């Protein structure tokens, strides 16, 4: 890797790694709850709903990220409303997702110019990240993490034992909405880096893989951060070497990590040492 070592001197690669690492850390912590709450589909939906917002922003001539964030948060509210009666509403999520995409299609059709910065929002432009964006990403990620830390304990309680938590005074419904809002924020932060379509790779994969290996939250979180970092480093390095899109490498590494973790967990269970974890 002599190329890479030299390449690291370049600011754009440094920015790419910095941005990717921030997202990996964010993804590990948010992803821990996403897996616990079975919110994988909601996460995917929120990133796609955000995409429609970006298209709308382009249509009315404002910064796409603003539309992205606005629609993501609106989407979170919509998903929360649809899930009021049942814990997770897969059907409602699917329909809201598709309706948003349809709206995005409408915006694109009306704008009549296939804005290239909208397409890049689909796949990510990690090598197009500049210093200022890294800074912004760091601030947004810090906000999301701070919010998550603030509600982490009651959120865990409400996720694992909803009825008991409610009787203990935990505002379970408000937490449902708050959590979706945090996911929306995290997705909006992640999207410009790895793209709307690949948010999973860092928000779901590492946390799920870590959960298969260890049931202890501290260990699982640390492992998730590590796995995310591996995916980011590996992805950026491979993208640098081959010139192929970084999102592809990150997604592939994340999937391999998960398959490996599942295999390890299965092997452990087979050896009769008992199940490693109930989490994923």
């Amino acid at each position: 890797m002599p190329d890479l070592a030299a390449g690291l001197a370049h600011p754009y690669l440094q920015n790419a790694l910095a941005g990717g690492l921030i997202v990996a850390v964010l993804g590990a912590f948010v992803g821990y709850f996403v897996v616990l709450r079975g919110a994988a589909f909601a996460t995917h939906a929120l990133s796609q709903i955000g995409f429609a917002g970006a298209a709308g922003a382009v249509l009315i001539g404002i910064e796409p990220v603003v539309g992205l964030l606005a629609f993501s948060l609106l989407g979170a509210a919509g998903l929360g409303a649809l899930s009021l009666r049942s814990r997770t509403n897969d059907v409602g999520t699917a329909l809201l997702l598709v309706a948003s995409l349809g709206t995005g299609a409408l915006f694109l059709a009306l704008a009549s110019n296939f804005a290239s910065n909208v397409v890049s929002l689909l796949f990510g432009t990690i090598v197009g990240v500049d210093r200022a964006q890294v800074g912004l990403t760091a601030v947004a990620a810090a906000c999301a993490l701070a919010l998550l830390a603030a509600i982490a304990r009651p959120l865990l309680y409400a996720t694992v034992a909803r009825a008991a938590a409610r009787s203990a005074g935990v505002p379970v419904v408000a937490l449902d909405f708050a959590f979706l809002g945090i996911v929306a924020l995290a997705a909006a932060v992640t999207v410009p880096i790895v793209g709307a379509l690949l948010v999973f790779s860092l928000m779901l994969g590492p946390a799920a893989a870590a959960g298969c290996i260890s049931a202890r939250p501290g260990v699982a979180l640390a492992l998730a951060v590590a796995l995310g970092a591996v995916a980011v480093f590996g992805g950026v390095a491979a993208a640098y070497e081959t010139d192929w899109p970084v999102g592809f490498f990150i997604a592939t590494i994340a999937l391999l990590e998960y398959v490996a973790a599942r295999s390890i967990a299965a092997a452990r269970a087979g050896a009769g040492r008992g199940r490693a974890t109930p989490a994923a």
Partner: protein
Amino acid sequence: MAEFFASPNVQAALVASAIVAALSAAIGYFVVLRGLSFAGHAVTDVGLTGGAGAMLLGLDPLFGLIAFSVGAATAVGAFGPRARERDVATGLVLAFALGIGAVFLHLQTKFANAQSTLLFGSIFDLDPALLRVVAAVGVFAIAAIAAMYRPLLFASVAPEVARSAGVPVRALGFAFLIVMAIGVAETAQIVGVLISTALLVGPAATAIALVRDPLRGIVCAMAIGIGVTWLGIALAFASFDWSRGAQSWPVSFFVALLALAAYVAARAYRRVRDA
């Protein structure tokens, strides 16, 4: 409006879209019952990548669509029947497939156009040979669902009891995923990936909220699916007038919105009825 419906292209579009709407509703009934909405949607996204990839290679996109869709369904099925693991697996398989799409896009920027076509469908541009294939696949898929109906319902409602009665629960689940993938791929070919997800879960979920028993529910879902699709097409046509002839709004937009509206309305009705 009369000339619109007289055009053979439009008539073909209406027939083809009705077939896939009915097909999607029948399959979708079990998708909703089994909690496979995410898998159903993910399979369409993955199929999109495969179809566009096939188009790039100069092949019939249906091959790529079906191959990737069935592949995705197989991968999801392989990870196991438990809902949480399946959703995680679905997300990661989806991300992986989209990553491949990113590579295709990188290698061939025409990929974006191919994707666009598949995202929204080429409903008014149907090849008559394709219509025959659609009808054939449609008949096959509906026949498969009809044949599997009882054991599938049993396995979806009471899996342990079904197993004790000799239903091959795990194998049947797998088979259903494959049928779903084929049905969804076929629908996407006609009306695009976006509408195919809407038609898969929307009408079925609406019918489930309104109708008490499965057989009538499936018929109701088919009717709602066809209605939503045709209404969407009509509205898209009408929108031509709204924009004073500049542009018609996409069919996908109307169908998706109608599907969502129907579902929300049915849920609200159910809530009022049960109160």
